[in-house]
Each structure stands twice: as structure tokens, then as C-alpha cells.
């Protein structure tokens, strides 16, 4: 299988990337807003301070007079520990304050609002607020500019503090977003995993369409999967149909051939001829049997998709099957001993008969003449077990499971007529009923034990 990376991981990474981007963006924005808010606060206080000073401007005996109000500076001291500078000037004449304070770069017209400016003074960045008022000096009014400036340490420290807080929150937001992303990725991929699990849980011949609620995005996948399984089922069914049809068509003429051969055998005088005819009959029997088993197998495959269950008494079924094989057993002087308990099961009787018949047939076939085949039915642990024990040569070497595969025969089966389908049929039937087939060699290689295990209904 070639992997192109996990969708879940890719989805998580993508979402985490988006979260990181958003975190950084929000941190940057909050930092910007914090700085703006701090700056605006400082501007407001500076404006209040400069206005308070400007309001004390007055003309006394033709001279510009003013008093710095205490509150003008105490309000500046209240918001931060920033250095404060000021200047009151008419034109180039400084009335009071720091005469080297940079002049506002913008034009300040008298009577207008407070004008703000940023500059540098005494080695620090300062924010300046300037307001202009007309005051009578001598005989004519002159504009007096009042400037109050403050360093920006408070603004910087407030915005740094808020920026740090925002960074902390952004990191927290990012971590929460990443874990949520992982959770979201896993949740959205859950239906896919569920479908995969449902498909892999199925038995090898279970080709029923998947019937489960799936998200819209997975509907095409489900449809294609179901369509594939449908086609697969159809082609398998047509193959089985073909085999059944073929087996049927072979069996009918074979029966005719056998009948004719029997008649010929009866009327034949010559020993050599009789011998040849017997061989012929045996070959026909073998072919007929193979064709029968192919038909059985096809039936099993066909019916196991759609079991026709009905409640039956297991002992009736066993008796019936045993009775059907009694003549074959009798031919080899084999006794079929049945040890029954009454058990009611809910199974497809045709298939169960098929399975049991194949197992019994095998037992008879591989048993030496004048021996016993013991059939017993027991119940326990939620299971019903039908075990068939013969006194043959056992299963031979190699794993028992291989024998239940199609056309596989045991290493010690040479010289015995067989197709290698019997155990496969039995196993398929049992699996279709939710049971299993257990095969084992009895102690000391004194026979085989085949057990058909069914769940109790």
C-alpha cells in the first residue's frame, strides 16, 4: 500500500496553521489597539492639561500673564511616571518653560482645538499637545502658544503589558485550537474508519451491500463500493450457476451411462469384460459424485447469502441424513452409530443436510470396512456440537485448515474417490450459520473427528 500521508494529520496541521495565523493576527491587533488606547489616554490628559494652562492666560496692563495651575501638572503625574516639559510662547518669545522644546511642526491657529505632535527632547520620545489663544499684548492681540509635552514611558509600559497579556492569551487560544483541530479531524474521519472497519469485519463471502448512514461526502465511496460488491457477487453467482448447470448436465447423461453399464454388466459373460464394466461404473460414480458435490457447493454458495432458516429438530435432520447414507455404509459393512439428544435449531435444513452428508460421506469413505462411525450431538457453552468420529487413518500430516479449502485433499487420500469439496461445503455452511468446523485426528491416529459447531438459538 502506498501512503500519501494521513488525512487526519494533514487536516490537523492545516487547522493548526490557520489557528496560528489567527493567533498572531489577534495578538498583533490587540497590541495595536492597546497602544492606540494608551496613546489616546495620554493625548486626552495632555489636552486637558494644556487647556487648563491656556485658560489662565490673560492680559494685565498690556502684558501677557498666566499662572500654571497645580492641577495641570498633577493630572499628568497621576497617569504615569513620565517626564513633563512645557512652554508658553508668543511667536519666538518664550514667556516661560523649556525654551529648547521643539516647536509643533503643524500650524496651530488660535482658538482651534488642541494640536498633537510627536518629537524628541532630552533624549526621549515625547508627545506634545499645543493650543493657541489670542491675548492682548500692548495694543493688539497676539497669539500665545501653550505646549505641554510628556515622555511616552507610560504608554510604552501599558502597551507592553497588554501586549504580553495578549500574547499569553494568543498562545492559550492556539493550544486550545490545536487540540480542537485534532478532535475535529478525528471526528470527521470517524465515519470513514467505521466503514473500513465494517468492510474488514465481513466474512470472505459476504457481499451484501453496506447499509449504514454515511456523510454526504462518503456517499459516492459507499455507492461505488456497493456497486463493486454487487458486480463481484453477480459474477460469482453466475460462475456458481454455470458450475451447477454444468454439473447437472453432466450428471443426467452419466446416470444413463451408469444404467446402461449395469445392464451390460449383468448380461456380460466374459470376466474381463465384467471387470472393465465395473471400472467404468466406478469412474462414472466418481464423476457423478464430483458433479454432485459441485452442485452442492454451488447451492451452498448461493444459499448462504440468503439463508432460508426454519426451526427444526436436529435429531430428525441427523436421522434423515444418516438414513440416506445407510446404504453406502452398508456396502462397506460400516455401522453408523447415532447418539442423540433432542435439540431444536434454527437453520437452513437443506444446507445443514448438505454439510452433514458431506462429513458423513467423508467418514464412510475413509473408514476401513467393518468399522464404526459414531455420530453424537451435544450441547453446552452456547453451542451445539455434532461430532462425527471414524476409525480411519486420520487427517494425515499438515495443517487441518488446508483441507477445508477448495479441491484440497489430505496427503493420505490417494486411492479414494473424492473431489476435495466436501469439507469446504461443510465449513461454508457452518460459517454461514455463524458456526465453525473443527477437524482433528483422534489419539494414536485411530481415526478422525469432525465436529460441526453451531451456535445455540
Amino acid at each position, binding site marked *: 500500500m502506498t501512503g500519501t500521508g494521513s488525512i487526519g494529520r494533514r487536516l490537523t496541521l492545516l487547522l493548526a496553521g490557520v489557528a496560528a495565523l489567527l493567533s498572531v493576527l489577534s495578538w498583533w491587533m490587540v497590541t495595536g489597539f492597546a497602544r492606540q488606547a494608551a496613546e489616546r489616554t495620554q493625548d486626552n490628559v495632555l489636552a486637558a492639561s494644556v487647556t487648563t494652562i491656556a485658560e489662565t492666560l490673560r492680559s494685565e496692563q498690556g502684558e501677557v*500673564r*498666566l*499662572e*500654571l*495651575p*497645580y*492641577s*495641570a*501638572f*498633577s493630572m*499628568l*503625574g*497621576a497617569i504615569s*511616571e513620565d*517626564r*513633563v*516639559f512645557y512652554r508658553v510662547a508668543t511667536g519666538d518669545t518664550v*514667556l*516661560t*518653560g*523649556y525654551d529648547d522644546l521643539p516647536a509643533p511642526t503643524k500650524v496651530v491657529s488660535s482658538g482651534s482645538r488642541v494640536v498633537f505632535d510627536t518629537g524628541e527632547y*532630552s*533624549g526621549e520620545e515625547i508627545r506634545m499637545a499645543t493650543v493657541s489663544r489670542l491675548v492682548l499684548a500692548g495694543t493688539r492681540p497676539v497669539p500665545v502658544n501653550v505646549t505641554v509635552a510628556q515622555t511616552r*514611558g507610560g504608554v510604552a509600559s501599558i502597551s507592553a503589558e497588554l501586549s504580553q497579556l495578549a500574547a499569553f492569551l494568543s498562545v492559550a487560544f492556539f493550544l486550545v485550537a490545536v487540540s480542537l483541530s485534532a478532535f475535529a479531524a478525528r471526528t470527521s474521519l470517524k465515519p470513514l474508519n467505521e466503514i473500513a472497519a465494517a468492510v474488514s469485519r465481513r466474512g470472505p463471502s459476504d457481499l451484501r451491500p453496506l447499509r449504514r448512514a454515511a456523510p454526504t461526502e462518503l456517499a459516492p465511496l459507499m455507492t461505488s463500493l456497493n456497486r463493486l460488491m454487487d458486480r463481484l457477487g453477480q459474477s460469482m453467482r453466475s460462475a456458481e450457476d454455470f458450475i451447477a448447470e454444468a454439473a447437472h448436465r453432466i450428471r443426467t447423461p452419466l446416470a444413463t451411462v451408469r444404467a446402461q453399464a449395469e445392464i451390460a454388466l449383468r448380461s456380460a459373460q466374459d470376466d474381463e469384460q465384467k471387470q472393465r464394466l465395473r471400472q467404468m461404473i466406478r469412474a462414472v460414480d466418481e464423476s457423478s459424485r464430483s458433479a454432485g458435490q459441485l452442485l452442492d457447493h454451488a447451492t451452498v454458495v448461493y444459499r448462504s447469502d440468503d439463508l432460508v432458516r426454519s426451526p427444526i429438530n436436529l435429531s430428525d435432520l441427523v436421522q434423515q441424513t444418516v438414513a440416506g447414507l445407510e446404504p453406502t455404509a452398508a456396502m462397506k459393512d460400516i455401522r453408523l452409530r447415532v447418539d442423540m439428544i433432542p435439540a431444536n435449531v434454527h437453520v437452513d435444513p437443506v444446507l445443514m443436510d448438505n454439510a452433514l452428508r458431506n462429513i458423513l460421506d467423508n467418514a464412510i469413505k475413509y473408514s476401513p470396512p467393518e468399522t464404526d462411525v459414531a455420530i453424537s450431538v451435544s450441547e453446552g457453552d452456547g453451542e451445539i456440537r455434532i461430532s462425527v468420529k471414524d476409525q480411519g487413518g486420520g487427517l494425515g500430516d499438515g495443517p487441518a485448515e488446508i483441507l477445508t479449502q477448495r479441491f484440497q485433499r489430505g496427503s493420505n487420500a490417494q486411492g479414494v474417490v473424492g473431489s476435495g469439496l466436501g469439507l469446504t461445503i461443510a465449513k461454508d455452511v457452518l460459517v454461514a450459520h455463524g458456526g465453525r468446523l473443527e477437524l482433528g485426528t483422534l489419539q494414536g491416529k485411530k481415526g478422525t473427528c469432525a465436529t460441526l459447531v453451531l451456535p445455540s438459538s
Partner: protein
Amino acid sequence: MRHTCLALVLGCLATLVSALEIEDHRLFPGTGDRVLRVISTADLEVFEPYLREFQSSQPSVSIDYTVVSSTELYRAIRGGAAFDLALSSAMDLQFQLANDGFAKSHSSETTTALPEWARWRDLIFAFTAEPAVVVLSTPRFEGLESPTTRQELVTLLREFPDRFDGAVGTYDVRDSGLGYLFATQEARSTDAYWRLSEVMGRLNPQLYCCSGQMIDDVADGKLALAYNVLGSYAAERLARDSGGQVQILGMQDFTNVILRTAIIPTTADETAGAGALIDMLARLGQREAPDTWPLPPLGQTGTDNLVGFGPIRLGPALMVYLDPLNRRAFLTEWENALEQR
């Protein structure tokens, strides 16, 4: 080597110092080459124990201690005189120096432990809180009740003009930076200040540059009362030593509490030594228990009845009355009140 160095330093000092109006000066020699040049408004007798204490922990540092008035100190530092540490009781002038960039920053565990109102920007540090008090002469107040508010003082002065004529002393705020600070803060805080000044003005008040002389004159009986004296421990001790001749009163309507502050001028070379001395002073300023140090700590203001009046706030508002226009206006008003000849 050491001696040439010392001589050089002293020579430099001599030239600088000549520009200053020095009240007192002493060199406390240490064992090493380092010299800590301190300019201060605190008298030697008040401050010597602190310097001795400092030298006991740093014996290698010599201390060159110069006493000047607070305005002289301000002018010297502003003029670029080379000192490593400036200690002054005129917190407005100290603040202006720090605001205008004449102070170096200093930060240590001790200074950050100072309450927020006792420092500003790691540039200026307070180490004592001292109230302004009234010192009065007991014999000259015989038969009179001691005033507890300015209103009572005004009434008293009005009722007995003969008794108090020429016997009232206060700072000459034109010369004394501390006196100016007390006067402006009081004028801002209580309307009784101007009334009191008017009344004092009619009594031929004696004007002083420094609190020490005022206290001495009260002790001698030359003055009946001295108004707005820096009520440090020294004054209290004098009051005790005088055997009841001198009393100290705190006004209950309002009392100014000033912070004695330290800055490291930008001209400082021996910043490590200056920082260490600031740390020591700040540590002593934060002490809880009253003890034998000449200056009170920050926590208590010396006299019990003054509790409740916080110190003047260290902040840009202190610069308001230093503004030349404001100062001129204030002094004009003050002269009109106090010099009614």
C-alpha cells in the same frame, strides 16, 4: 599613586567648590582610592552617623561631604558640578533635576521595595519623611495656651501684638528652597496661610535661611515662635535637651510633610558607591522601629499628632511653583504680606 589621585580629585573639587556657597565640608578618608562625592543639605552633625555607618560596611570608600543650601545644590547640579550623590530636603528642586534629565537611574532590590510614593522612575528616592512644625519658646508663651491650628495662632498673634512683635521667625522663601516649598504647598492647601502671613507681616517677622538658626534663636528666647521649621529629630532632641524651654507643635488643621530625597547626578563617576549609599538610606527609611538615627524613617512622621497627613507627592506638579512666572507672582504676594513697612 593614591595620593596624587586624591590630590587631583581634591583640586578639581576646590575649583568647583569655589563657585558654590559652601556651608560646611569634610572628607571622611577611606582605605582605598574610591571617593564618593556627596552634596547635601543635611548638616554634618545630622548626617555624620549615616556616613560612618556606610564606611563601616565599605571602608575603602572615602566620602567627600559638602553641605550647601537646597537652592545652591540645585544650581550646582544644573550647572554640571561633579558630584556622585545629591541629597536634598527640597523635593521640588530634586524633582525638577530628575525631570529635566540631570539624574541617573538606579535600581536595586531595596529601592524597588520603597513604597511607590517614595520614588519616581528609578531616578529619585525618598529616605525620610519630615513634617513642618512650629517651634515655640515656653517662657515667652507663659500664660498662653499653645495654638493647635492656624486659626488659633492667628487669633493669638492678633490678641498679643506687643508680645510677639519682632519675635516671630519663619523662612525667607526668597532664599530658602525648602521654605518656598513649604509656603507654596501650604498656600495651596489651606486658605489660612495668607491670613497668617498677613498677621505675621504686621509683627516685624524675622526671616531666616535655615531652620537651625531659627531653632537656636527660639532656644535663646530671641524668638517666641518659629513657623514652618523642618521638624526632624534634631529639633526634637533640642527640645528635650533644653529642659522644656523649647516646644514643638504640629498644626492639626494641616501639616506639610516633605520627603528628603536622593538623586545620582549625571556627572557622577562613583555610581556604584552612590547606589550603595542610596540603598543604605532607603533601607533605613523603611525601618519600622523608632531608634537613635537623627532622621525619621518614611513610615512615621516623628510626632504622633501629625499622623494622617501624607507627604507631598513626588510628581510633575512640584514643578508648577518653580515656574519663573509662578514664582514671581508668589513672591510678590508673599512680600506684600510679610513686608508691610
